[in-house]
């Protein structure tokens, strides 16, 4: 009798397990409170949708792309995942993504910023929808700058001069990360700020052009004032340098730095009066500043099992109470993609937004003037016309070029020629370049 009861219980469990639909969600917000917010949203969604389970996994930035690729190769992609904008367009070009137009409709197309809608949008269809946006920032020690009488840098030469002046104060003039992703981000936005392009319309790399040579020389000049061994510093280490008072400026800063400063800097200086932001300067051949926009889109995978439920989950994610909880976890970095939430009183009343207003204003300026682009994207057209940017980023060729100039002291032209040759070989092997 006991055996029969056990077997019945077991079969019921198996049946219910079969009935449950699982939505696998991968995201890159590794900060504990952001992870908690996504989990909370998932639990609320499950409560409203019996029979649906949301499995949330937070992944480090560097791990995400390989993991997505491996899951696609294995035929087991998650339902939803964050990804670099250039990854999104690369996957879309291979027909691996499903449209998110239903989610866009539920939010109201006009309610979404124009800048955000340009990410992973192909032929009027939205294949990726940004979870939140934030731009890179030039963060500096305001108190030290005031003491030295430094002015906001308008040109790259001004910035180098400021870095030099800061370096007389017992700290490095500037801190920048040396890892592949951030060097690619840096190079992309500097080339844009100097009026250059990385590739022409025929996909030929343009590394030997004047704007890029000038960019390399600028990085070489600037990194003279970076801490010794800067090339070994990761992104989070550069924040440590900043709030640990080892460096006075940070070129690849982001809004999440405000949270880190409040948490880790000595209390007497952990505020916007001591850590402020300048608008990024313009290169000698450029006309306007440029910043990178950190705006990973949600992607819905064609090969996933429960795509309909995943769309419902995304709609739920963007509902005001859920989305507000999410963006408030890193309020200076995670800008909502909807105009309605941006104007919402509850959002505006977020205490951190009140405390770090100048940081918000500079980011809004970049976004409103369309000066912010995703990694390695110079013009919006690149998003769809250059599906190889993901491979270019992964290859590390651009980072090697920067290191050749900044560390090995090779002439910029020589380093650029070597990288040009490597990139051409890469693109030819993939059939993008004749």
């Amino acid at each position, binding site marked *: 009798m006991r055996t029969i009861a056990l077997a019945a219980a077991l079969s019921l469990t198996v049946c219910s397990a079969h009935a449950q639909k699982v939505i696998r969600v991968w995201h890159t917000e590794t900060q504990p409170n952001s992870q908690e917010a996504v989990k909370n949203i998932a639990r609320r969604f499950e409560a409203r949708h019996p029979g649906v389970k949301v499995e949330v996994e937070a992944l480090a930035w560097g791990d995400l792309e390989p993991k997505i690729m491996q899951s696609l*190769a294995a035929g087991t992609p998650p339902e939803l995942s964050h990804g670099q904008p250039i990854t999104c367009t690369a996957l879309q070009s291979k027909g691996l993504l499903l449209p998110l137009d239903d989610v866009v409709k539920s939010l109201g197309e006009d309610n979404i910023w124009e800048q955000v809608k340009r990410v992973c949008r192909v032929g009027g269809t939205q294949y990726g929808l940004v979870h939140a946006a934030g731009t890179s920032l030039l963060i500096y020690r305001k108190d030290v700058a005031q003491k030295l009488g430094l002015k906001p840098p308008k040109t790259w030469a001004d910035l180098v001069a400021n870095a030099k002046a800061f370096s007389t104060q017992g700290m490095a003039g500037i801190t920048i990360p040396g*890892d*592949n992703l951030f060097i690619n981000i840096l190079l992309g936005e500097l080339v844009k700020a100097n009026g250059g392009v990385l590739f022409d319309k025929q996909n030929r790399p343009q590394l030997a052009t004047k704007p890029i040579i000038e960019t390399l020389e600028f990085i070489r000049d600037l990194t003279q004032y970076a801490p010794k*061994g800067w*090339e070994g510093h990761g992104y989070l*280490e550069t924040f440590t340098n900043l709030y640990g008072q080892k460096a006075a400026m940070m070129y690849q800063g982001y809004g999440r730095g405000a949270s880190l400063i409040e948490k880790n800097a000595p209390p007497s200086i952990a505020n916007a009066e001591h850590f402020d932001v300048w608008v990024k300067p313009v290169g000698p051949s450029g006309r306007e500043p440029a910043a990178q926009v950190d705006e990973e889109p949600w992607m819905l995978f064609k090969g996933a099992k429960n795509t309909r439920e995943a769309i419902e989950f995304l709609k739920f994610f963007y509902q005001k109470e859920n989305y507000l909880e999410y963006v408030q976890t890193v309020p200076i970095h995670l800008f909502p993609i909807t105009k309605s939430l941006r104007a919402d009183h509850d959002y505006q009343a977020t205490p951190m937004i009140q405390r770090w207003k100048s940081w918000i204003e500079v980011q809004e300026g970049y976004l409103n003037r369309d000066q912010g682009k995703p990694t390695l994207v110079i013009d919006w057209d690149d998003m769809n016309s250059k599906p190889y940017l993901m491979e270019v980023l*992964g*290859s590390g060729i651009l980072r*090697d070029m920067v290191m050749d100039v900044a560390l090995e002291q090779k002439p910029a032209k020589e380093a650029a020629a070597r990288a040009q040759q490597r990139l051409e070989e*890469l693109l030819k092997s993939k059939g993008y370049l004749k």
Partner: protein
Amino acid sequence: MRAARAGWLLVLPAAALIAALSLYPVGYGIWLSFYNKHAFFPGEQFIGLANYGAVLADEEFWRSLRLGLVYSLSTIVLQLLIGTAAALLLNEAFPARGLVRAVAIFPYVVPTVVAIIIWKWLLNNQFGLVNYALGVSISWFGRDWIMVSLILVSVWQFFPFVLLAVLARLQTIPLDLYEAAKVDGANAWRRFVHITLPQLAGVLFVVVLLRSVWMFTKFDTPWLMIQGGGAEPYIRTLPIYTFQRTFAYYEAGRGSAMAVLMFLLLVVAAALYFRLWRREEQL
């Protein structure tokens, strides 16, 4: 005849398992090396030996090979020296020897990821304990020092393997050999050179062979060293570059060609090693 068939049938499951788990992946890797194949997307194109040609013409390949040789040779030499010295020490009688022996193998049992996280903290150039203790400001993960850091961490991690192997052999050397040498007036150094070393030769042969293969193909330690910062180009050894070609450039064919070449290099090195060793034995 029937007995022979039964024997084959009995061996078959094991042979099938070996073929499935070992030969198939190797064979697939070799097959891939003749194709232009994206690492993840379907479809491939036969290109013969073009991948091999491209690899041999790639200056990064040669640079990675050079870095890999620097890394593996220096770590092997240091592991041998430190491991053997530690084994000789731990073969002597002293109080709490058992405890010291247990502690000595600790680095080898610590998971690599844990070891690297600990060392990255210790060697942090701004806030690390090592710089503080030494009173220096060395950028351990910068261009000039990252290879040194990698070698130090690897030697720390793997010398206990040498220690264990050598210590086990030391404990089996007959003591009367030493006693006879003492009677003949041999001092400690001569006893070491003429008794201990020859007795250790067999185990050192195996240790050098294994550690050479493992260090030359070592991936996890350098890979973890460059996660979240670390001047990667300066410790981009051949396994790292092969991984990048496959999973960052998304070139499975070319990555496989590199892996095959790495395998061939090891086969040639092992063959040379065996040949040299045999000659030594004949002397």
